[in-house]
């Protein structure tokens, strides 16, 4: 990138299974307050805002009109990206690189506990001709993808279960995580089947929370306090919504997004040049599939590497150090926000008990969940 952009502030509510004491707007307000304090700015200094949301997730039509005030964005430029937080981050980066603003704020929020009929919501994301009339669980799509991924890559169900054990244990040490737990492999393998081979514990449970991130141009960074984390590049890609023409085994969307982000960031051998990854693990197999799509190991090797502790916090290449979706919670479009948050804290050396010894370059990657084939990737460095 010819103009440099840094994350100069980040704030979060942390993630909880329910948040009955606050409205969804107050969740964002709390995260925004912390982000502005972290960056040492007032919202009046912000040139533009980017919110990420979906009408049906929030339960409002035209929900983007409800996003300014809780960010301090009234009478300012704001637009909503109906996509993952990292896609919103990419929009923020573009606003700075184009010279539109020097300071840009990116917001993401999940109030999953407000949504009583989540199954209906996901079913309404399905094609009304080819899929919806069958009224099968949306998890069936993930289960079929998992089956094909395991079949083609040679990874195993046990190796997927190992991901669950690791991420929920990591979350035990994360004060912001909703779902920390000390599980054994057998606990995961013996859990109730949902859509085989997916069982209950392979699927991330929903959580509430918000993340707000302050971006600044290189020129502005000097006049701000704190510890800038540089956005080395950001990219995203979508394959197809069509079940009949999508790739079932590999996460091609994530591979394309990663290749572009690495190319622009000048990264040639990601496993060597990157120290750790925070990536989407909404289903256990997704961590393995995304590790391979991000080029962090060879095709079909992620499972074996996970078994020998490669992706543990103490391993050669830590993945989801703070618990990922399985440990923090499934946050819908905030998925990438949790990933960016934990990458930033590691890169700043502020990850507490989770802190890695070496954390200079990170990759964060979000997926928009079933039935999408959209992935977003950002490379961050300190």
């Amino acid at each position, binding site marked *: 990138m010819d103009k440099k952009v840094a994350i100069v502030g980040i704030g979060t509510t942390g993630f909880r299974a329910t948040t009955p004491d606050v409205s969804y707007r107050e969740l964002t*307000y709390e995260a925004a307050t912390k982000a502005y304090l972290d960056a040492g700015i007032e919202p009046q200094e912000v040139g533009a805002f980017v919110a990420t949301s979906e009408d049906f997730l929030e339960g409002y039509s035209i929900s983007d009109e409800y996003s300014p005030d809780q960010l301090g964005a009234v009478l300012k430029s704001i637009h909503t990206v109906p996509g993952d937080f990292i896609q919103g981050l990419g929009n923020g980066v573009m606003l700075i690189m184009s010279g539109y603003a020097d300071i840009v704020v990116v917001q993401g929020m999940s109030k999953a506990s407000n949504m009583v009929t989540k199954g209906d919501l996901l079913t309404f994301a399905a094609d009304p001709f080819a899929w919806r009339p069958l009224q*099968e669980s949306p998890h069936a799509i993930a289960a079929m993808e998992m*089956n094909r991924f395991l079949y083609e890559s040679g990874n195993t169900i046990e190796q997927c279960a190992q991901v669950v054990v690791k991420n929920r244990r990591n979350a035990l040490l994360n004060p912001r995580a909703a779902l920390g737990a000390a599980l054994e492999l057998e606990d995961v393998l013996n859990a*109730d*089947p949902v859509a085989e081979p997916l069982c209950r514990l392979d699927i991330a449970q929903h959580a509430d929370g918000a993340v707000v991130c302050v971006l600044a141009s290189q020129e502005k960074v000097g006049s701000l306090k704190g510890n800038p984390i540089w956005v080395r590049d950001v990219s995203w890609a979508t394959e197809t919504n069509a079940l*009949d023409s999508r790739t079932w085994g590999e996460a091609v969307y994530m591979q394309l997004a990663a290749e572009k982000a690495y190319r622009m960031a000048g990264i040639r051998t990601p496993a060597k040049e990157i120290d750790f990854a925070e990536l989407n693990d909404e289903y256990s197999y997704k961590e393995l599939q995304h590790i391979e799509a991000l080029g962090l190991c060879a095709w079909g090797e992620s499972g074996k590497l996970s078994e020998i502790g490669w992706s543990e916090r103490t391993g050669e290449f830590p993945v989801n150090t703070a618990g990922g979706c399985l440990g923090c919670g499934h946050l819908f479009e905030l998925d990438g926000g949790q990933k960016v948050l934990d990458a930033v804290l590691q890169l700043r050396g502020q990850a507490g008990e989770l802190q890695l010894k070496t954390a200079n370059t990170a990759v964060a990657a979000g997926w928009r969940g079933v039935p999408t084939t959209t992935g977003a990737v950002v490379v961050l460095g300190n």
Partner: protein
Amino acid sequence: MALIERLQNRPDATYWPGKIPMTYIYTAGRAGEAFFKKLRDSGKFIGARCEDCDLTYFPPRIFCECCFNRIEGNWVNVKNRGVVHTLTICHETYDDKPKETPSIVAFIRFEDTDGGMFHRLGDVDYEDCYIGMPVEAVLKPKTQRKGGILDIKHFRPL
């Protein structure tokens, strides 16, 4: 400023229930009309051919997603035979309730096409199903067919 005080008692949490009572009709479009009418009236399948890309879309479309050419009318007959590309057995309904009878669901690649179909498998036990299993569609009788995906009862092993 952040939140100074927080709610202490959960029963004090005020909420307002809301529903989104919206109804839609989705038009099948030109390719959908051709596909579903053929299925309803003659119990046969068609796909759409893009010669430039050497791709056969199934179900058919009026444009190629690769070269973006218009391929409307390039319909080709597609045999009622395919193989299981991937599969699962669902123990829960779409709204997370346990199913009395689990359903076997598969993505089936149709012979001589680059597409396929998501549907249920029947007349078979899950234990006997596998990736690569040849299957065929079992259709409802003509009098019960309405021009939709449910005109197919399920797929069964060949």
